[in-house]
């Protein structure tokens, strides 16, 4: 009865680093096969997208005042730090960035084995009155963002919350949209989108691969 959730939850353990690195290399190798994984964003594309989003955040909020970037573990966190660096360079002031673990707020805890918790690190004086920009790698069902909003509510009362994602692959299950998107990727539900980052997986890339045998 929970088969659909199995497929659509995207922070699942099968997206472990090793597997994703393997997907990248297999994508590079298999030029001939049409069903193979393909790289949709490489390291330069990712850097460009993050730089543009950083500028958009500054533009939308008329500067970096009160802005806090909170990445959702695991791959949202390095993205948040990178964007904060770009913003600091542009504006000449430090932009705080941290991480927000949403594991304990997920709606699928009863459906899968216990997950390991990731650190929550709120920079500065907390989120009260701040303009929080949530950062994640892939926006899919929207359930992770829902959990993040709940987690944020328990930490304080931000002045506003915005959402920045590197990739929006569609198939939303909740009324949630991103304010800043690196790239819109039309995908089928069967496909798998994996993001690898230098900080966590040694390589910067976004890869689309066809469903593996088990998922259907």
């Amino acid at each position, binding site marked *: 009865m929970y088969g659909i959730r199995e497929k659509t939850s995207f922070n699942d353990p099968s997206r472990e680093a090793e597997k994703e690195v393997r997907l990248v290399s297999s994508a590079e190798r298999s030029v001939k096969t049409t069903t193979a994984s393909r790289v949709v964003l490489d390291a330069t594309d990712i850097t460009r997208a993050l730089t543009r989003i950083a500028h958009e955040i500054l533009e939308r909020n008329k500067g970096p005042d009160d802005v806090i970037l909170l990445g959702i573990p695991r791959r949202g966190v390095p993205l948040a730090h990178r964007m904060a660096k770009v913003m600091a360079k542009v504006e000449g002031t430090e932009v705080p960035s941290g991480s927000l*673990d949403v594991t304990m*707020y997920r709606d699928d*805890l009863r459906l899968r084995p216990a997950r390991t918790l990731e650190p929550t690190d709120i920079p500065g004086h907390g989120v009260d009155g701040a303009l929080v920009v949530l950062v994640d790698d892939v926006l899919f069902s929207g359930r992770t963002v829902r959990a993040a909003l709940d987690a944020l509510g328990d930490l304080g009362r931000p002045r506003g919350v915005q959402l920045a994602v590197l990739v929006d692959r569609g198939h939303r299950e909740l009324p949630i949209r991103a304010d800043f998107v690196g790239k819109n990727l039309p995908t089928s539900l069967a496909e798998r989108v994996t993001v690898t980052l230098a900080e966590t997986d040694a390589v910067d890339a976004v890869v689309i691969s066809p469903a593996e045998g088990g998922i259907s």
Partner: protein
Amino acid sequence: MRRHLLSSADLTRDDALQVLDTAEELRSLADRPIKKLPTLRGRTVVNLFFEDSTRTRISFEAAAKRLSADVINFSAKGSSVSKGESLKDTALTLEAMGADAVVIRHGSSGAPHRLATSGWVRSSVVNAGDGTHEHPTQALLDAFTLRRHLGDLAGRRITIVGDVLHSRVARSNALLLATLGAEVTLVAPPTLLPVGVSAWPVQTSYDLDSALDKCDAVMMLRVQHERMNAAFFPSAREYSRRYGLDDRRFDRLPDHAIVMHPGPMNRGMEISATVADSTRSVIVEQVTNGVAVRMAVLYLLLSGSDAARPGTEEAVL
């Protein structure tokens, strides 16, 4: 993590580290304005206490409530147990009420194991101390406290002193700390060391002074008068002189060494008041850490469905 937590002996190094790492993240909750997580909403945790307890029961209750579980407290006094109800009938009652986890403390060693394996209840069973057997969550919180002060426990020297014979804390700690790579020394009078201690992964000694010089932490055990049905040592005064942590022995400890006690303390008996209240005593911190560790245990045992849990119903942690 598997279905039940009955004994430190069942924990692999990875299991133990998972609990400790999870507790590390959960401990920061104590510093937040809202000290509550919605994780176990709608789940029921029963605290089934056949023996007296302050710390452990309150700690489990706080842990379950911070995870939003419903808590039912049951103590043998004032319940039908005093009318002669058996463990089985009590368990069937809990099962009928739909308990998801049963935290049990019992005077008889093995009662939690019986509850977990008899088929009386489908819930997860957490051992909160059974007779003179084990008290695994105490060992986990001690390991957690040690890790916060000493870092990785591999190669660290931990001295456990006192009434090892009657201590479920000593057994659980000795097994868990050995699993985590620490070198454990048990110090006790010969009458208070259990039969078969040579099979434990520890060293033993009868002389406290020689064991103090190089240790990284010393854990004092309570002298359990209520379980002593024979003369195990000539007098309290003699015990205190030979095995108590007094000011003189405290001065001989290395500067970084910490002092622990699972509580309740007999001040003046196994530990002097000055030592218990010193800055290097982490006895109060142990209680704070207990809540985080028990939250981690409840979270790891209760999240995840039967279908998602690897292994079968019989899997015992």
